[in-house]
């Protein structure tokens, strides 16, 4: 039996009233005047009378009457099976996704996020299933659904509180799309495990900075019925300005460093100064950047300390992105050997274009050696071998030790032999009958072509190859075809040889073979090969937190690495080094030592993290995110409570037990009155008879 107004049950305490009255009747508190006491004998007061109830049936009737009234007022009803079904409505499953990006480092944001999470968890109905996850550039689980399943609500809350207290925001960017996708996967995984059908919610707890990366959100298949609640963690001070080096490797040689000062749209300050830290320099540079705008400022390069220097922006209240790390200028020497016989200034040959493309490199001090030039003690980084050239003995050894060999098949004569000598046996080379081909299949996933993956760079259709050699690779060949011609002949393929690599191009870049050399894509392609030989990945020495420090892994493997404070990056042991591509986790200067030579990588806070003004939630809606109201769990609990109450009232109204109780109470009252009347009359009769 349940009650609609259980508070009325307190009224049952009124039963004590009749009991007390029936007890009190026996206490000698009455006074009786009498004509004379001469015939009366005093009787000692009998205390035992106090505990004796008089007129028990009358008392029982009165107690029952009160009880019936109390029950009627508390409006009882019986639960039916239908009710049980409603009452056991499952509680929601909630995935909490916490933003740990660098912008969460702003004053008060992380604390606010933590409080919001804990408050909302407390306000959730008991029995809600929680899973707590965090994201920035990557995604991690703080307390999975599995872990929380058997814990009490308070324990889950405590666990979450302690996990959040232990951690702090990272220096990474905000890959919201990735975070949401992984969390939904976790939700779906839990859904398959959980037998109960539950409504699902995803709470995104973030500062909602407009610089967040929404990539991938539009492709997410949202589970039916999932509600996304966006919980905003607010900073104490609105606005933020940040400083980032303009990532332009061609500029690094100049005597200035170009930095971008970005001011968020909700900022209240617009005047800043930029100065070198710990380095003697001229006066600080003043810069005015209105809210919502950015400026690129050229700062005269200062004398760099070992490793690199730091530029600091002052005037902004949020310090997390006010520092730009600038690596020390260094242009290591690189030797490029060309084994062809043609002259360096022959515009019909390969060498002319090769030297032209590589000599402008600001990254390296490139020197070139011809087939007859004496090689210094230095090993060539890149060895370009046109087919038909004679191959000195050191070439094979050099490639095996880590140099990059590039065979350019300009003719078929001796091509197969050349390939065989350098480690690619069994290949057949013939002049292709098709003329005027283009690269049709391009593997942008490969590290050499990855810089061209973006749509605006990925168009190679304008480059025509008048002639090419058809290479038939042997069965079981282990290498990667990077590009193919339209007739599916391999156009460019690569094969590892010892610690180095052997690249083969089936067509030359000179004008008689193709338009490649005259394409704007030629210098970066050649640079990429040289970088590969130098062990530096695309993107150069300027990186952001969350980028890979190197990709592909440098050849040879780095001997040592010096990382900024708090960074967890370290070199792997032994065999693992081949596929090891660590992520930069802390801004600062990372120094690799490769082949005895230091390589500096400056890592900064991702520039998008500076854009901290609040994002427009409409943008999420247009991306298909099922954004619910911000307080949906609380209101859902209220709604569920309202429905339950309505159902209880319906049941009570249908059963009308109170009516029967009132009827019984009335009967009881009649009985009581009749019995009391009978008692009184009996006493009177007795008195009259006496």
């Amino acid at each position, binding site marked *: 039996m349940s009650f609609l107004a259980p508070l009325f049950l307190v009224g049952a305490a009124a039963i004590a009233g009749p009991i007390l009255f029936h007890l009190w*009747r*026996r206490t*000698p508190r*009455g*006074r*009786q*005047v*009498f*004509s*004379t*006491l*001469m*015939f*009366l*004998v*005093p*009787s*000692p*007061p*009998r205390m035992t*009378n106090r505990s004796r109830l008089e007129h028990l049936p009358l008392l029982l009737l009165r107690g029952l009457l009160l009880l019936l009234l109390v029950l009627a007022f508390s409006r009882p009803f019986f639960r039916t099976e239908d009710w049980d079904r409603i009452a056991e409505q499952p509680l929601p499953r909630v995935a909490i996704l916490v933003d740990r990006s660098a912008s969460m480092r702003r004053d008060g944001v992380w604390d606010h996020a933590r409080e919001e999470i804990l408050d909302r968890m407390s306000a959730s109905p008991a029995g809600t299933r929680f899973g707590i996850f965090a994201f920035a550039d990557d995604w991690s689980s703080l307390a999975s659904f599995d872990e929380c399943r058997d814990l009490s609500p308070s324990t889950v809350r405590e666990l979450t509180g302690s996990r959040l207290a232990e951690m702090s925001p990272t220096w990474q960017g905000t890959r919201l799309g990735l975070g949401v996708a992984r969390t939904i996967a976790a939700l779906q995984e839990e859904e398959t495990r959980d037998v109960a059908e539950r409504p699902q919610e995803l709470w995104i707890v973030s500062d909602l900075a407009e610089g967040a990366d929404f990539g991938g959100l539009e492709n997410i298949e949202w589970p039916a019925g999932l509600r996304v609640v966006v919980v905003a963690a607010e900073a104490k001070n609105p606005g933020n300005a940040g400083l980032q080096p303009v990532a332009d490797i061609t500029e690094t040689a100049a005597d200035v460093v170009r930095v971008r000062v970005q001011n968020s749209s909700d900022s209240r300050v617009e005047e800043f100064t930029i100065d070198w830290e710990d380095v003697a320099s001229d006066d600080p540079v003043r810069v005015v950047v209105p809210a919502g705008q950015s400026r690129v400022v050229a700062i005269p390069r200062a004398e760099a300390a070992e490793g690199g220097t730091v530029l600091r922006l002052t005037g902004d209240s949020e310090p997390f992105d006010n520092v730009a790390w600038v690596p020390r200028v260094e242009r290591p020497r690189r030797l490029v050997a060309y084994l062809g016989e043609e002259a360096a200034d022959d515009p019909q040959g390969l060498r002319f274009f090769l030297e032209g493309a590589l000599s402008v490199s600001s990254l390296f001090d490139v020197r070139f050696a011809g087939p007859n030039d004496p090689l210094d003690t230095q090993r060539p980084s890149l060895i370009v071998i046109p087919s038909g050239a004679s191959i000195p003995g050191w070439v094979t050894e050099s490639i095996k030790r880590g140099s990059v060999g590039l065979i350019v098949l300009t003719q078929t004569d001796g091509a197969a032999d050349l390939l065989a000598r350098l480690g690619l046996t069994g290949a057949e080379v013939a002049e292709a009958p098709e003329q005027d081909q283009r690269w049709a299949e391009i593997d942008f996933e490969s590290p050499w072509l990855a810089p061209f993956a973006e749509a605006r760079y990925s168009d190679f259709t304008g480059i025509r190859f008048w002639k090419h050699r058809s290479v038939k690779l042997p069965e079981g060949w282990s290498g990667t075809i990077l590009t193919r011609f339209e007739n599916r002949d391999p156009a460019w393929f690569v094969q590892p040889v010892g610690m180095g690599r052997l690249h083969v191009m089936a067509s030359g870049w000179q004008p008689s073979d193709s338009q490649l050399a005259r394409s704007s894509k030629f210098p970066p392609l050649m640079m990429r090969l040289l970088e590969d030989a130098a062990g530096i990945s695309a993107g150069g020495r300027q990186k952001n937190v969350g980028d890979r420090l190197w990709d592909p892994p440098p050849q040879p493997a780095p001997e040592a690495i010096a990382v900024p404070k708090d960074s967890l990056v370290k070199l792997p042991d032994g065999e693992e080094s081949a596929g090891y591509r660590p992520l930069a986790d802390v801004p600062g200067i990372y120094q690799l030592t490769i082949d005895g030579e230091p390589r500096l990588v400056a890592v900064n806070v991702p520039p998008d993290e500076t854009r901290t003004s609040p994002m427009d939630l409409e943008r999420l809606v247009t991306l298909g995110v099922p954004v619910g109201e911000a307080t949906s769990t609380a209101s859902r609990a209220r709604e569920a409570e309202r429905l339950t109450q309505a159902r209880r009232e319906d049941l009570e109204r249908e059963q009308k037990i109170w009516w029967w109780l009132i009827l019984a109470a009335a009967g009881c009252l009649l009985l009581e009155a009749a019995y009391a009347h009978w008692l009184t009359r009996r*006493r009177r009769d*007795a*008195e009259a008879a*006496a």
Partner: protein
Amino acid sequence: MADYIDPATLMQLQSLEMRAKHVVEGFQTGLNRSPFHGFSVEFTEYRQYTQGDDPRYLDWRLFARTDRDYIKRFEDETNLRCQILLDVSRSMSFGSRGYSKFEYARTLAATLGWFLTTQRDAVGLATFGDDLYEFVPARFRPGHFRRLMVALEQPPEARGSRLNRPVERLCERLLRRGMVMVIADFLAPLDGWFDSLSALVARGQDVIVFQVLDPAEIDFQFSDAALFEDLETGRQVYVDPRFAAERYRKRLEEHLANVAESCSRLGVDFRRVRTDEPLEQVLFDVVRLRMHRKAMPRVAQRGGRR
């Protein structure tokens, strides 16, 4: 009996005089149907004896003188002097039926007074407690009954009741023979009471004793334990009726028997009156008592002088 007025109803009447007149009126209506003709004891007139008359009422002296049979029809009552002696002690203020014993007793006194007045007798009133308080000598004159009524208005406030001292003082005032009606509850130790009564009797007074008791005093039907307070002394005693009632009744019975026996021994008429008894009934019994008394030797004792 069914025509009698219930005392509770009678007590609703504010005027004592009205109560008395009501009772007497009702009583006289009943009397017309009865064989009694009042209790006057004096001769009034003669009439010729006719067959069937009671030969006891033949005037033998006249017969001897005139040789004619005459019957004594009435005796004039103006010669009867009746003094009512009313107990006004506090114990008389007890009552369980909505009116006190005193209320009943003074109504009884008024009723007797009015009845006697209608019989052309002289009525007086004295109130007593531990002393004699009011004293109105017996008279038969216009306005005298009203004076009695005023004397009866005094509330019962005497701290106790003893008879010897009041009777002593009464005897000083009662110079002629007559009748004394004592109305009291007699709920006090009886020491000296009957000596006083016998003094009255010795002085030639015809004494009638009315003992007025409340039904609650007789039955003691209290159910709740309580502190019982003595109306006269103010003393309080805790009494649980369930344990005390039986003993009370026994002791009371002994006391009442004692009173009745003492009266009988003195040759005094005794009538116990419950306050729930109709007053007409009491009056009727008194008249009947007087009739009986006339037939008894004591009447002859008095009549010997006539």
